[in-house]
């Protein structure tokens, strides 16, 4: 048999006073009274807590940091859950705040980079590097900064504000006089390209292409959660372009978030951002064009002109001097001395009294700007003729010898056709030849001729054969030789020669049938 617990046994046998009160209350208020009262009390407590919770937390927090400790884990968990469930929401909220913070960090990093670059560049020793160094020093910039400034030139020619979800153009601005593609098509195409890239590389759709290069253009794209900005830049864009575009897109998100989120295709509402977009049309001109070193060019030009003038003047002076000398010398004047200092010429001349004075000669020349001073020395004219020396006997003998030889060599003895008979008219010539040939023996010694030889050459005309002609011409020379010998010319002094007919002779037949004499001699 089971045994009941002691307390239960006691209760069943004896009713305590509290129990009696309880029973009475149930009779008076009904069976749910307990629960109702309980609920009332609880409600009171909540209200009570609600009223004091802020103060209580404050009080506790001021005492120690136990509150922060106990809350931190709860808050952490709450944030975790929230980010997991709505990642976009948190990004969208902090987007406008994040930009400036990131840019600050990037600026610091850039500063570092510039310093490194400075070091690298400081090793360059090219002419240009020295020039830039000097210019940087003049401009009060670090060399590296200056190099960057010099190297980057660009112009943002167009800025498009594009709705990210639809790819529709929200607003656009561009510099005047630029041929451009339809910005609406460009917006859509750019969105498509971005979608394509994200798709192809399995990237998050919130990610975005940040730049596209084509030829001399760079398309810089900065994206916010709901819209993106695309800047078409010609040249090499500096970091400041991206920074500017980032600032603009942040500002637009800050000011027009609701319009961007609920965009229904009506872009007129976004017209107020035009001014802001225009601030993105940055440009940096090539510095080279502006900083033409005019001063240096001026000096060079002056130097060139000066040099030209100097060369012209120098040439003029030399030319004038040359003219003076030429004119004087042509008039038979002797220049004894000349000295030129700058544009003044000093001369010492010598001339005969009969010749014109140097002044008269120079008066005819154009010597503007040229000074000539002449010391004119004159030789007086002598009236009596200068005696001519008589030729010496030897000179006379030589002359006579030469004359006789020339006469002998000029003689021609003509013969009858096909015969060794002298023509009648030439017998006088033969007689003369004999006389002159004999006279050579007497003339030779006084003229210093040690030995001489007479050569008689006979010729025939073109008729008849060669052998006959040679025979005939030899016979003709023989006839003359015999005459010379018979009249006293020493036979050893004479040589005979029969040449026959001279081929292709242009002389008449009569002139071809001859005998002539050559005189060879040693002197």
């Amino acid at each position: 048999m089971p045994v009941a617990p002691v307390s239960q046994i006691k209760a069943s046998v004896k009713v305590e006073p509290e129990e009696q009160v309880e029973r009475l209350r149930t009779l008076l208020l009904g069976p749910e009274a307990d629960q109702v009262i309980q609920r009332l009390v609880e409600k009171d407590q909540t209200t009570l807590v609600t009223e004091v919770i802020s103060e209580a937390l404050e009080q506790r927090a001021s005492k120690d940091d136990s509150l922060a400790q106990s809350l931190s884990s709860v808050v952490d968990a709450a944030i975790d859950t929230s980010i997991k469930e709505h990642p976009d929401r948190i990004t969208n909220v902090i987007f406008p705040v994040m930009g400036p913070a990131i840019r600050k960090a990037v600026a610091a990093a850039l500063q570092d980079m510039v310093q490194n670059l400075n070091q690298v560049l400081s090793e360059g020793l090219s002419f240009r590097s020295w020039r830039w160094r000097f210019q940087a020093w003049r401009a009060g910039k670090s060399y590296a900064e200056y190099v960057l400034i010099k190297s980057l030139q660009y112009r943002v020619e167009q800025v498009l504000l594009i709705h990210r979800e639809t790819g529709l153009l929200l607003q656009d601005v561009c510099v005047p006089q630029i041929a451009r593609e339809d910005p609406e098509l460009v917006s859509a195409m750019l969105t498509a390209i971005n979608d394509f890239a994200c798709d192809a590389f399995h990237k998050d759709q919130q990610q975005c292409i940040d730049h596209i290069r084509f030829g001399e253009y760079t398309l810089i794209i900065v994206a916010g959660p709901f819209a993106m900005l695309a800047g078409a830049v010609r040249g090499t864009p500096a970091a400041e372009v991206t920074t500017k575009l980032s600032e603009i897109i942040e500002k637009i998100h800050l000011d027009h978030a609701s319009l961007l989120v609920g965009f229904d295709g009506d872009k007129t509402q976004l017209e107020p951002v035009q001014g802001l977009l225009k601030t993105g049309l940055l440009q940096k001109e090539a510095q080279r064009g502006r900083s033409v070193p005019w001063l240096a060019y001026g000096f060079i030009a002056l130097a060139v002109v000066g040099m030209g003038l100097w060369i012209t003047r120098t040439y003029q002076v030399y030319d004038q001097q040359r003219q003076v000398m030429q004119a004087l010398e042509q008039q038979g004047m002797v220049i004894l001395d000349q000295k030129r200092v700058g544009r003044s010429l000093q001369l010492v001349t010598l001339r005969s009294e009969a010749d014109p004075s140097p002044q008269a000669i120079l008066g005819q020349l154009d010597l503007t700007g040229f000074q000539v001073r002449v010391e004119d020395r004159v030789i007086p004219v002598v009236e009596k003729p200068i005696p001519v020396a008589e030729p010496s006997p030897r000179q006379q003998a030589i002359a006579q010898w030469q004359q006789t030889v020339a006469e002998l060599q000029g003689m021609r003895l003509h013969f009858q056709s096909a015969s060794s008979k002298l023509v009648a008219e030439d017998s006088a010539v033969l007689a003369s030849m004999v006389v002159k040939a004999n006279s050579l023996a007497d003339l030779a010694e006084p003229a210093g001729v040690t030995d001489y030889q007479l050569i008689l050459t006979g010729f025939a005309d073109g008729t008849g054969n060669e052998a006959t002609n040679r025979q005939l011409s030899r016979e003709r020379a023989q006839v003359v030789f015999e005459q010379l010998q018979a009249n006293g010319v020493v036979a050893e002094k004479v040589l005979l020669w029969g040449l026959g007919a001279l081929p292709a002779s242009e002389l008449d037949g009569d002139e071809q049938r001859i005998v002539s004499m050559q005189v060879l001699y040693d002197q």
Partner: protein
Amino acid sequence: MISKKICLIGSFAVGKTSLVRRFVTDGFDEKYQTTIGVKIDKKEVALADQTLQFVIWDLEGPDEFAELRTTYLRGASGYFLVIDATRPKTLEIALSLNQKVRETLNSVPFLLLINKTDLEAERRISREELQPCIEAGWSVMETSAKTGRNVEHAFEVLAQMLVDHAEARSL
């Protein structure tokens, strides 16, 4: 003026590009389409009380080489579902494509275009076969990019549907 992005979706060679070419005279060179799978054109559509500007995304149809890039559908306010009247298979593909599109875009207006209706003799899709679509409340229209039949009208109808849809939503 209100701008709207719309898409053309359908199997390859049903005539999407031809329809756009018929409707629009100028636009990007078609070589873009083969590069990234989409060709973009724009054209204004005048309605009774306002003018809409359509930015038209002509999506390369899915074939054995490429799938439909649903990314391109993002932000579209409406679309054309295009089939080729001479190829029943294209209706089948269109139905499955529409499923995909509905998953990507919330309910936006669209129009089913039965293209190439000039090829009467070769027509393989009967009006009866389209009955289920009509019963499902789809707007269906017969077109021919070749003759130009209903092309302009189709764009106007879609424009009106977009306007009505926008008004209904803002109520």
